[in-house]
């Protein structure tokens, strides 16, 4: 009988423990100690402190792995810290910090500033930790639900806004539905393996006949659940509604945090199902192409920027899925690079949209971007960088992400998919440039300067720099993705 809670277990679990503790502490403090309005703005320091401790814990794990190599396995194989998990943990930390920085002013303007927002933000990040580190079906399921339930609450955070209510309800119904499917698949996988550990599941799948109906049913239901979570067509319908109705700061977090965590889960699960590759690979390829098609063409007709970016994020999910379809190391590496790049460029684009939100202006229409170059040249140029990057035009970061996916497809001799993926870049350029045109050519829609905050400017500088630096000097980041996969 193994020991119940060893020091390794504690070392591996520490970041999640810290996040959960600080998240709950923020909830409690908001309730008990900070009834006065003017003290509430100091709650953000709790978030900063919690994230700083988490960063230290993650850094210690990182240096441990650097010294000893291999991976840290805890709880008899239920949790693991390897390069892959750490890569995602850093990504989640960056996304959460940036979102926390910009939320303050946005929620003040919307008059819905409550302390529990930050607590739930950290609990969502805690759920993401278990998605990237979990190697046990139970851990993964509970982590997924912790993240999802936190996001349901965050999407509906503007309680008096009908659109926010509606977005939360739609997201919850479809999200819970898809979780049910995923859990059903998990139960069948457990039944086949007689264990909830992912490596036992992998051996059990390898031992099965590929025509076994239970195996097919398990792969089918797990895939449906995962496609919902990464918002791939035909299970994408929740995404545009949830993105449009949610508070924009939450939309930004949802589009990068939730997506990256779901992709971490997807990569781990499909790797475990690797023995049945011939079953799921064609399905994955079909879903990826459908996502590219629907995502890109539906985005063309949108007038709401949040909805436009929602469809564009569906097409980005398609590109990332193609990395898994290629099935070689370069493909996985491309997925990680793409996720890293996507996190910063997509956050950046949403930041500019948040900046457009002023006291009486929602700022969510493409027309609201009108004449931004005259109103605030800095924001207009940053938005240009983010949009070029989203479209995948060199020398921005988005190009690097797409380049590696294309390379992987060519190496795997899937020329047809590579050509389709490249052609859709042209469609993407078309709708991103509608926003650019609005900013640079069309006349100014609103008068007056944009009021911003320090957090907003800091977050914009970080995302803008990341987008440019990864584009101009990609080697260290590509190597980072490479070493993350090797360990």
């Amino acid at each position: 009988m193994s020991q119940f809670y060893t020091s390794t277990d504690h070392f591996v679990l520490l970041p999640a423990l810290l996040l959960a503790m600080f998240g709950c502490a923020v909830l409690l403090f908001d309730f008990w100690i900070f009834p006065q309005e003017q003290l509430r703005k100091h709650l953000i320091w709790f978030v900063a402190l919690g994230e700083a401790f988490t960063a230290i814990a993650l850094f210690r794990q990182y240096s441990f792995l650097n010294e000893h190599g291999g991976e840290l396995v805890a709880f008899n194989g239920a949790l693991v810290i390897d390069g892959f998990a750490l890569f995602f943990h850093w990504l989640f930390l960056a996304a959460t910090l940036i979102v926390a920085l910009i939320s303050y002013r946005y929620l003040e303007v919307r008059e819905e500033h409550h302390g529990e927002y930050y607590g739930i933000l950290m609990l969502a990040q805690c759920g993401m930790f278990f998605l990237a580190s979990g190697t046990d079906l139970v851990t993964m399921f509970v982590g997924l639900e912790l993240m999802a339930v936190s996001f349901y609450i965050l999407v509906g955070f503007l309680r008096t806004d009908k659109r926010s209510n509606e977005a939360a309800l739609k997201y919850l119904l479809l999200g819970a539905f898809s979780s049910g499917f995923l859990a059903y698949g998990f139960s069948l996988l457990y039944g086949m393996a007689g264990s909830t550990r992912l490596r036992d599941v992998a051996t059990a799948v390898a031992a099965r006949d590929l025509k076994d109906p239970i195996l097919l049913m398990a792969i089918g239901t797990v895939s449906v659940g995962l496609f919902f979570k990464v918002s791939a067509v035909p299970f994408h319908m929740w995404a545009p509604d949830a993105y449009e109705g949610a508070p924009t700061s939450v939309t930004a977090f949802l589009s990068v945090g939730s997506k990256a965590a779901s992709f971490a889960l997807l990569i781990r699960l499909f790797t475990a199902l690797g023995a049945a590759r011939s079953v799921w690979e064609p399905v994955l390829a079909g879903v990826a192409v459908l996502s590219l098609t629907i995502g890109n063409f539906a985005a063309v007709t949108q007038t709401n920027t949040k909805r436009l970016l929602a469809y564009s994020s569906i097409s980005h999910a398609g590109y990332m899925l193609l990395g898994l379809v290629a099935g070689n190391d370069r493909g996985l590496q491309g997925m990680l690079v793409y996720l890293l790049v996507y996190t910063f460029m997509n956050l950046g684009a949403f930041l500019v949209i948040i900046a457009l939100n002023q006291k009486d202006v929602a700022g969510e229409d493409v027309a609201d971007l009108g004449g931004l170059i005259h109103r605030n040249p800095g924001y207009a140029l940053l938005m240009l960088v983010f949009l070029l990057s989203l479209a995948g035009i060199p020398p921005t970061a988005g190009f690097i992400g797409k380049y590696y996916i294309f390379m992987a497809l060519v190496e795997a001799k899937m020329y047809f998919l590579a050509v389709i993926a490249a052609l859709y870049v042209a469609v993407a350029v078309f709708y991103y440039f509608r926003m650019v045109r609005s900013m640079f050519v069309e006349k100014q829609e609103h008068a007056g300067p944009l009021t911003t905050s320090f957090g907003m400017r800091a977050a914009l500088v970080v995302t803008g720099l990341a987008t440019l630096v990864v584009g101009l000097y990609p080697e260290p980041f590509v190597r980072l993705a490479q070493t993350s996969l090797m360990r």
Partner: protein
Amino acid sequence: MGTITPTHYLVLSAALLLIGTAGVLLRRNVVVVLMSIELILNAVNLNLVAFGNMAGQLNGQIFAIFVITVAVAEAAVGLGILIALFRNKETVQVDEIDLLKW
């Protein structure tokens, strides 16, 4: 009278999954949709407990308890959101909740 074999459990849980899915896709009342989601999760629980029993382990039952807990959390948040929506809009019919569309 035959004995109950694992196949019986599997068929029952598959039927529950189908009924739940049909409920989510076809019913118009949000509360009924939430109940249908519970049906799906109960299909999962049935599977887990049956498989756990077959393998002679407790793992399946432990997983089932986690699923039940998660289902409760989801239902609580779901009903909370529904109440917030009802205060603003006075409806629980899915097809009347239609502000967001292209």
